């Protein structure tokens, strides 16, 4: 196990590749204009590196003329076009120096035509063909168009997933919905006629088509929609709301329906509070003796009740204030036939 905790797979002369942060060389030809061979990053490399290269049975061994460095550490080598030869086995030798020890790492023969990564396509153009058909065309910065194959991915604003297709130089979408808008991307790769590679280019700048933008996609129309959505509609809504509020305030009939008044029963009690000074019993017409009877210190005079003599002896009945005849205690009083306020005269 190395110092960094990584398992040591390649050990030569007591030195471990992985200990030195080295995990192999990766070379890529960018659009056949230049090539880079990278062997690590600043964070992983712990030794001093140098690169030597040659083409088998063709050229002498040469050292890299332009190292790529990251904070003073060599992490790769840059090759210009004149140093690149395709269809010739290409090999590199990496020297890793750590202290007094040097580790030499020899790569496998590489075929540079199989390491080409073309540039992304440009000038994507959409044309409206007949019967709801779209045609997408593009151009490629790569010089040999016959050596390219292309991949197109597209989706509409209603779709969630991209649709991928590998195509020739022209892509046709047979039927489109004019209510949707579509987004297209294209990328390229060296085809099997000219090499054996899996290196796709980066995706191109997208092109859109559909109802949210014209085929020209002008900024003026987008600004027009911006003003409508963010300024005009909110102001119109506020004005409408204001008009409704004013109407509601001025038309009391409508206001009363929407906001009915809370009933105020105080007028019904004006007579109680004004005429009778809050005397509820008086206002309600409760008799005085009933009022008196509810007082705590109420004492009622005994009312003597006597039976009327027969008809042949007509004597005046007693009046109020005279001593009434005695009433036996415990005996219930005879029911009265007339009001106690009235004098009980029995006429003869």
């Amino acid at each position, binding site marked *: 196990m190395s110092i960094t905790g990584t398992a040591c797979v390649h050990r030569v002369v007591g030195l471990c590749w992985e200990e030195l942060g080295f995990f192999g060389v990766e070379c890529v030809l960018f659009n056949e204009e230049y090539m880079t061979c990278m062997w690590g990053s600043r964070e992983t490399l712990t030794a001093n590196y140098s690169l030597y290269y040659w083409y088998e049975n063709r050229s002498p061994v040469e050292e890299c003329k332009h190292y790529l460095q990251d904070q003073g550490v060599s992490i790769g080598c840059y090759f210009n076009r004149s140093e690149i030869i395709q269809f010739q086995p290409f090999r590199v030798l990496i020297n890793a120096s750590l202290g007094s020890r040097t580790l030499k790492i020899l790569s496998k023969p590489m*075929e540079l*035509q199989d390491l080409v990564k073309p540039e992304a396509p440009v000038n994507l153009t959409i044309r409206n063909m007949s019967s709801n058909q779209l045609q997408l065309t593009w151009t490629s910065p790569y010089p040999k168009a016959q050596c390219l194959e292309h991949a197109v991915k597209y989706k509409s604003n209603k779709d969630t997933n991209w649709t991928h297709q590998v195509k020739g130089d022209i892509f046709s979408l047979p039927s489109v919905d004019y209510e949707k808008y579509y987004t297209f991307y294209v990328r390229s790769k060296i085809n099997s*006629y*000219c090499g054996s590679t899996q290196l796709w280019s980066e995706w191109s700048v997208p092109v859109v088509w559909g109802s949210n933008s014209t085929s020209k996609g002008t900024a003026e129309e987008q600004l027009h929609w911006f003003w409508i959505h963010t300024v005009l509609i909110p102001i119109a809504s506020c004005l409408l709301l204001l008009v409704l509020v004013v109407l509601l305030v001025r038309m009391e009939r409508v206001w009363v329906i929407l906001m009915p008044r809370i009933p105020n029963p105080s007028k019904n009690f004006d007579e109680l509070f004004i005429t009778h000074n809050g005397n509820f019993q008086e206002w309600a017409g409760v008799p005085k003796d009933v009022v008196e009877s509810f007082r705590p210190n109420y004492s009622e005079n005994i009312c003597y009740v006597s039976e009327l003599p027969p008809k042949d002896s007509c004597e005046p009945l007693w009046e109020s204030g005279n001593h009434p005849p005695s009433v036996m205690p415990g005996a219930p009083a005879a029911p009265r036939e007339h009001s106690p306020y009235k004098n009980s005269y029995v006429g003869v």
Partner: protein
Amino acid sequence: LSHVMATTFFRSIFRVLPLLLLLSPVNSSSCAMGNRTTQIREKYENILSHDIDELVNMSAEYRDRCCKNKKHENSKVFFCNDTQEIESLQSMACNMLRFFHKQKISKDYRWKAALVSCGTLQVLQCKCERHKKDKVCMQVNTHNKDTEKSEQSKKKCNQEFCELKENISSLRSCWNKFEKIIFR
């Protein structure tokens, strides 16, 4: 004297002529002349390239551990020389035909390799120096190969297989070069 001089003259001519024939380049092209790049490209892209891809895929299915770090005889036939791509392809295709009778190699693999070789020669309209190899192409184009029951024993790694595999890789690479450089 004139008679002697004439005789001497003609004898010297007759000595030189065989010498000239002997010294004439053995590798003179036996391919049809003429600018046929468009036809060659069509046949390569539409037919031959697919057979080559299948053959390369078959190569990956066989064990090749015994092939690493080995240099083979006749390595010169594996180069695709600049401005001599047709001649290089012819040389590679003719060299591949000699593996057709190698019993240590899987029969399927040998047949496919021979098919690609003969296809290359046909597209380029070339012939091999040794006419025995042309008979192989007649056999490949007219016969249906007999399938053998046990193919497992043929898949063991051996040096003939390694050499054929490298030859196939070089042939594919040379066709790539031809397409990329010649067809513009």
